[in-house]
């Protein structure tokens, strides 16, 4: 059975492109543009991994990730954002809830590699 990935981003083209790519790579993909949609997708079935933007229409991404981790403590979250952080600062600030930080300028192949590593690490 394919592993399920939840994509959270307020920009629909980003969600669609990433979903198309990950589906072609063999994953089951669900997507959401807001926190409400995110919670609805989680209610439909717990994902194996979450990819989330930092900015959402209805809430701050980091706050939403914190709430999400309370429900899904074992699910790794990748923060995929166009807001440029200093990598050192990003690690310090984000490490609490986020397994990995990637910029949206990262190629899809790198995103895929990161997903695979995190999912392999999660498997018993």
């Amino acid at each position, binding site marked *: 059975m394919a592993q399920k990935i939840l994509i959270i981003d307020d*920009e629909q083209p980003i969600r669609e492109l990433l979903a198309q790519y990950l589906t*072609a790579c063999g994953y089951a993909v669900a997507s959401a543009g807001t926190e409400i949609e995110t919670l609805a997708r989680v209610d439909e079935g717990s994902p194996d991994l979450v990819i989330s933007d930092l900015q959402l229409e209805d809430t701050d991404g980091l706050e939403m990730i914190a709430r999400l981790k309370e429900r899904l403590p074992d699910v790794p979250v990748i923060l995929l954002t166009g807001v440029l952080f200093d990598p050192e600062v990003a690690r310090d600030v984000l490490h609490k809830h986020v397994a990995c930080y990637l910029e949206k*300028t990262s190629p899809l192949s790198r995103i895929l590699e990161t997903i695979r590593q995190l999912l392999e690490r999660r498997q018993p």
Partner: protein
Amino acid sequence: MNDLTIRRILAVFLVVAAVLIGVAIAAIRNIERSASSSDWVNHTHAVISETEAFFGAVQAGDAALRTYLVTGDPRDQAAIRDAAAQVDEHLEVAKALVRQDPETSQQFVLLETLARQRAEYNRELMAARSANDSAALRTLLASDAGGGGIREIQRKTEQLKAAAMARLSVQDTANYLQAQRTRWTVWGGVALNVLLLAGAIWLIRDDLNARKALAASLREANLQLETRVQERTAELTAANARLSNENLERQWANQALEHQVRYNQLILDSINDLVLVLTKTQKISRVNAAVIHLTGFPSTDLINQPLARIVHVIPPAGAPVLHDPLTLALDEGRDLRDLPAILEDKAGGRTRVRLTLFPLRDGIKVVGGIVTLQPQPA
């Protein structure tokens, strides 16, 4: 089965049929010849039988005559006449039998002559005996002393029989040879047909083997083709997936670039001062929202235009203007801070501003500059 094999097999069966017809014709002709030969043999035996019966009747007549000559009994005359009638009858039958054989007919004519002479001689003896003429009897008997007449008839009869037997022997030999030829013809035909049928079987077997080999070859070719098609399909599928991924990567990169440009623009637009990005030749490549707001120009009217179209640096009073200070600063890669300048808007209005220039560096190379304008109170 291919056309050539069918034609060959048909040709073989035609030859087999021809051989069978030939053998049948030879057998029928042999049967007819055997029947004809049998008729001839029966006929020849009938001639021999009649010849022997003829000579037997002659001898019987002669014996009856001698008895009569001794006894003079009239009943013996009847036996003599009866024998003479039998002689005539057998002669007539024999002549009828050999009517179509002139040579044998001639022999029987000669035999008939001898038989008539003998009959005449017998009648003369009977007449002499009836008349009890002893002298005539002695004369007649003396003329046939030793039985020369009978022996001549016997000799001719034997010759006829011997000739008939010789013809029978020749015919028998011919019949045997004919039977042998027919036998060889039949067996030869059978053997030839067996060989031809064996040839047909070999042709069919050869054709079947060729068809099996062809079928196996076709199966092998189909398998190879199927394998090649599968390989090619896998290659195409992989290439398609690769192209699809590359396409997605390009779209993703474009999306990220657009996002980044928009984000940068947001940063620029969030600054209250007027910000203009210049090329090395001082042409405007980018402006923030404050510039558009204050000048009234849309960004499309400003992009790629010289900075001097809307900004004029005020030279220090009394100082000669030898060089444009912005050009010098960009060439030397240094900042300019708080230069007095005039900003001209779309309606021709003029606003006093303080100009600051920061060279834009790519590594050690100056590729342009950032100009900020701070409006001054009137």
